[in-house]
């Protein structure tokens, strides 16, 4: 089975673990972790990603800047982006969608919802 790659950008290690634990239920999905926007920039060229899940509020570089770079770079502009925000982060979530994010998930992340969104976006999973 062909592998699919997911870049998960989130600054809280525990939150990353919880999301990865949920994503592990999808066979064939490989996950690369990044701890903030700059870390994600380092990792983007290293793999052809099929989806990126990103938090918005992060130190060093936030999710909006990361999405903006991706949408302006032909190499990355087709990677579908899913924004992870809290319910309260409506404003930032809308800004993310305006920049070209494909979908969003709210924290606390519901496993079924997460899996549904990821499967909808990545064909072949």
């Amino acid at each position, binding site marked *: 089975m062909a592998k699919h790659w997911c870049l998960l950008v989130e*600054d*809280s*290690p*525990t*939150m990353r*673990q*919880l999301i990865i*634990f949920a994503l592990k239920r999808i066979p064939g999905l490989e996950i*690369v*972790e990044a*701890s903030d*926007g*700059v*870390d994600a*920039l*380092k*990792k983007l*060229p*290293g*793999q052809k990603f099929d989806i990126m899940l990103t938090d*918005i*509020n*992060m*130190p*060093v*570089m*936030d999710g*909006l*800047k*990361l*999405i*903006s*770079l991706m949408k*302006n*770079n*032909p*190499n990355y502009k087709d990677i579908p982006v899913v924004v992870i925000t*809290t319910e*309260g982060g409506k*404003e*930032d979530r809308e*800004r993310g969608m*305006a*920049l070209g994010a494909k979908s969003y998930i709210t*924290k*606390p*992340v519901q496993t079924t919802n997460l899996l549904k969104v990821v499967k909808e976006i990545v064909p072949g999973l």
Partner: protein
Amino acid sequence: MAGKKEKSAYAEFVIEAEELLESMGDRLTALEKDAEEGNVDPGMVNDFFRSMHTLKGLSGMLGLKNVSDLSHGLENLMDMLRMGKIDFRHGAMDALFSGVEILSRLVARVGAAGSEEGIDISAELRRIRQAMEEKAEGDRDVTLENVGLDQRILETLTEYEEHRLLDNLRRNNSLYRVEAHFPFASFDRELHEISEKLRSQGEIISTLPSSDESSPETISFDLVVGSAKTRKQIARSLGKRKGVTLHAVECGGTPPPAAAPASREPPERAAAEAGYESMTLKSLSQTVRVDIRKLDNLMNIVGELVINRTSISQISQELLVLRGFTGLAVDLSKGARNLERNLRQLQQAVIGSRMVPIGQVFSRLNRVVRKLSQDFGKKVELTVHGEETELDKLMVEDLADPLLHLVRNSFDHGLEAPAERKKLGKPEVGSIELRAEQRGNHIIIEIEDDGRGIDVEKIRKIAVDKGLLEEGHSADEQSVLNFLFLPAFSTKEKASQMSGRGVGLDVVKTNVARLGGMIDVETELGVGTRLTITLPITLAIIQALLVEVGDEHFAIPLNSILESNRIYKGQIKTVEKREVIHLRDRTLPLLRLADIFRIGGSRAANSDKLYVVVVGLAEKRLGLVVDSLQGQQEVVIKSLGEVFEGVTGVAGATELGDKKAILVLDVGALIEEATHGS
């Protein structure tokens, strides 16, 4: 439904939550100081907000309702603060301080009991709601309409960044845009460098990356900076850098002077291309979290190696004796020495990985003192020195409570009320100093206050009243002060008020003794009190002194040994049927190991000269009489198991190189035996 996965998620949560709360607590103290000076660092406020945000997200996912509700409330409060909707006033600061405190307790409870029940947060939530009603004073209205920034930059601003941009305009700060082109291989480092430089000059409002398909080896950034400084000052601070250009941004008011490049050269092509090869999926982070139990295991393995090394050294010694200094024997001896050196390095590295700075505890104390000062209206300044001093992680945790106790004692009983201090001609603000430093294999922690000191004569009187001391007994000051550490002394309300000390000092002593530490008290009436705690750096592998009694050998932990002396039989006196000697200005009780362990054939029994090893634990001292000293050695303490449970005076056993097991003495128990036993 606490399955295995959930339990481990709880453990992860507790680790991260503790780290977050710790760093928030640190920031709060600084934040309060800055707020008083009207000079709050927005970056710090935003970090605080983000930490709270993370905590809320995590606890929500684990269904920890109280943590989640409280952190949500505090997140909202922080959000209003960072957005300038309310000011840093007392209400907000108090809500933050006590909120963080309660959160820490909740998290500790989750860690210990797996549940957060039993801690009420409704008062906190009310406090937060009230603080959120303290609206900020109205600000002059500004808009982003005439700001000369590219649409691409403006549309990626978060709500918070937008607010910061407007706030900078309100303060009539200038805006700058720094355009930077970095080679891919090194952009993270270079970005970090110029960010640090810019932060020293003002506030970085936004960092927007861009990359171009035609040159994938380069990555570009636009940094928007708000600053009160001139373009020239900022350019000077940036220095000459390849690929970095500084632009002034029009703010809608008077046009700023035209941009002049700090440097306009493109990034070096060759270097950039070389860097492209080194693209990586590796993490940027340089730290790894490790369960302390894994480190314990590593420590045990190193311990076993230490034992094996000793046995190889002994074989090598014997071979040298048998064969003389010839080929194989010399080679083995060299090899053994190298092994010994490497092993020591390994051991130090493993111990080093368990070390954390004691500042973690100090900053908690800082918060406690602040709260006490507020609640009781006593002004006090807590100064700390040596917070970077490192100690075994487990020990740092076990130290937190004893130190808290001692600081509370200084505050409650040591420091006088402001009015009384004034009358005495002391500065109104009392002082408590915390100091930590490493001396050899020990850590020394001192807690010193400039309060009323301890009245030694009063304690002497109470001791006599209680029958602990004979009337007219000439016990020295140190011995008298040691009564403070007796449980009987601590619990009496009256005693504690009269002596000005003594609340729960017995508990402190027990805790410190469990860590193999000692406590000393120095005091001067009317001037202040200093408590000194001496601790070993780590507990698992220890340096020990090997001694001989009859045909038996014992190991005495070096960290509880103060000195060893050779004395004459004639120096021994008998007081209350016990042997003592006078060593300098102290009366030192003696204990003959041969008697305790019923060993026959001890030479010390009849000899004119004998060896005394002076040991100490917490505030007590004892002289152990032995036949001879056999030298110093590293030993690994092993538990003796159930068979030896209940045998007094033995902490465990250790193997020497020759695979012979010897007993390691439990100094604390021996002291207890000598001072209380019949």
